């Protein structure tokens, strides 16, 4: 006998088909590591996103309280493992700031070469993985092909391909091998025309534009309010880059270099003359703009490395002698932020006068960039979640530390 209900609507209330909790991650490929998102969905529309982090927490700050600053350098590598060089640089500068250690001109130019090459490698992964998030596999291979050549150059310089520990407080662990500059210059000459391929594959791709233009729009006020930095902030049209606006200790590296901050001003990007125009659907601050800022920063970095190679070959001084492991740190504290590929990476060092710091702290750029997801994804479609999170280009190692 069929079940009869007095009021057929009861069953509908009971089943509650209107809202559903969907768990994304922590092993979802499009979350760039072990990020878990809990979505509250109403059909295809997401009404609430809650990021859960901490799956990659490795107590880096606590470990830092038991090691000397030079010994902690390898731990900074493992934070943002896609831009190890830039992380080494941030920590080294922070330690040098507390020690008031001055580097020779040559060492500064060497750091510019290495940091900007690191930025290119990191943005290539960001770009390739973003294509992967949106279901386009081939750009990833094209990006990794070129990144591999940068890693080969890094391997020649320091022996490692991912966790370099090359830049260290006091300078670098070694000078560049002979012929390296020439090989680096050759790579740039070969790489620059290839950027057009990436634009053809992604930037101007009709499907890519449909997936990213007008999605996840972030106003400049919102970006600053959430502490978003780097390409995420500049993608919203804010003209702010620590390489120009940062502390003197960091900006002196870039003194005399010709470069412009990549952000849209009055509807134009610097250096956009021979690169694709902004599609008409794109709104300032959307996923497409964040992606485009990264692409233009690659061009910018190529230009900076070329300038740095010229300066390095004529500069005086040595490549910088690393400080001794047992160097006592002066009593006091120092905080310094650098412009890492993913945003402003800050290190904070408190010392009580021993060789081992009293407290170290890493201010992660991805951590702040990710905190905006809950606001950014409210009301968008489930399929747009990877597009929005991917455009923030987060690295979980850096968020969880």
């Amino acid at each position, binding site marked *: 006998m069929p079940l009869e209900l007095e009021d057929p609507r009861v069953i509908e209330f009971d089943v509650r088909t209107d809202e559903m909790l969907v768990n994304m991650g922590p092993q979802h490929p499009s979350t760039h590591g072990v990020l878990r998102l809990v979505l509250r969905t109403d059909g295809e529309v997401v009404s609430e996103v809650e990021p859960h*982090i*901490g799956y990659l*927490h490795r*107590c880096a*700050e*606590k470990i830092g309280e038991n090691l000397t600053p030079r010994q902690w350098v390898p731990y900074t590598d493992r934070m943002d493992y896609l831009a190890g060089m830039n992380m080494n640089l941030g920590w080294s500068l922070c330690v040098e*700031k*507390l020690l*008031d250690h001055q580097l020779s001109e040559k060492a500064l130019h060497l750091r510019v070469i290495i940091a900007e090459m690191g930025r290119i490698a990191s943005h290539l992964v960001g770009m390739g993985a973003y294509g992967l998030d949106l279901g386009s596999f081939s750009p990833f291979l094209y990006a990794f092909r070129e990144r591999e050549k940068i890693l080969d150059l890094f391997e020649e310089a320091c022996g490692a391909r991912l966790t370099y520990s090359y830049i260290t407080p006091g300078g670098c662990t070694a000078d560049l091998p002979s012929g390296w500059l020439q090989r680096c210059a050759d790579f740039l000459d070969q790489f620059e025309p290839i950027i057009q391929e990436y634009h053809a594959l992604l930037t101007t791709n009709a499907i890519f534009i449909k997936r990213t233009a007008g999605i996840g729009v972030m106003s400049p006020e919102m970006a*600053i*309010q*959430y*502490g978003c*930095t780097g390409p995420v902030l500049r993608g919203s049209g*804010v003209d*702010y880059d620590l390489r120009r*606006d940062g*502390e003197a200790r960091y900006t002196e590296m870039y003194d005399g270099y010709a470069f412009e901050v990549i952000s849209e001003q009055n509807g134009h990007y610097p250096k956009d003359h021979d690169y694709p125009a902004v599609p008409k659907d794109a709104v300032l601050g959307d996923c497409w703009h964040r992606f485009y800022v990264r692409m233009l920063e690659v061009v910018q970095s190529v230009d900076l490395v070329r300038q740095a190679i010229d300066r390095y070959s004529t500069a005086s001084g040595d490549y910088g002698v690393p400080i001794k492991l047992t160097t006592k740190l002066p009593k*006091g*504290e*120092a*905080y310094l*932020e650098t412009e890492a590929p993913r945003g*402003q990476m*800050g290190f*904070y060092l*408190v010392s*009580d006068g021993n060789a081992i710091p*009293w*407290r170290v*702290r890493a*201010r992660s750029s991805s*951590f*702040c960039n990710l*905190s905006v997801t809950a606001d950014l994804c409210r009301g968008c479609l489930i399929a747009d979640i990877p597009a929005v999170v991917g455009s923030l280009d987060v690295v979980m190692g850096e968020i*969880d*530390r």
Partner: protein
Amino acid sequence: MTGTSFVSRLQQKFGDQITGSNLEAVDPWIEVAPESIAEVCQFLRDDEELAFDLLNCITAVDYFIADPKKAAKAGWEPHIDVVYHMSSVSKKHSLVVKVRLPRWKDGVEGQLPEVPTVSQVWRTADWHEREVFDLSGVCFTGHPDLRRILCPEDWVGYPLRKDYEMPLEYHGIRGR
């Protein structure tokens, strides 16, 4: 604007709520009484000349030495500093604000020290305060959603405290 003018401006506005400053340090800092941190931060952000619109970082530093002989030589009483690093995108200057808290509220072990939240001033503070709560054990009163962020929700203790001891066992996983 330089450190001296920040201090004089804040002292003019908040008087004795500005409890100290060190302008000779590598990064000049200003110390604020815990109860007025939220108002001071609101002022720092909204004032047109100061305009600290970007909160870079919130950190807690635990000052505690277990060995009483060494502690006597340290030159400070045990306490926790909460450090706010902020900067201005438009004015391109930066500032460090500190708040000094007892290690435990009213000296009772297990009672977290309290400081008002600044998450209504900067949204960045939301996650940063959760992290400080999680790792250093500082309670931010008025925070909309104060729970652990990096450690599991059932974790016991505050790992970045100097007297923290690693648990022997967590859900059947050996700790040491």
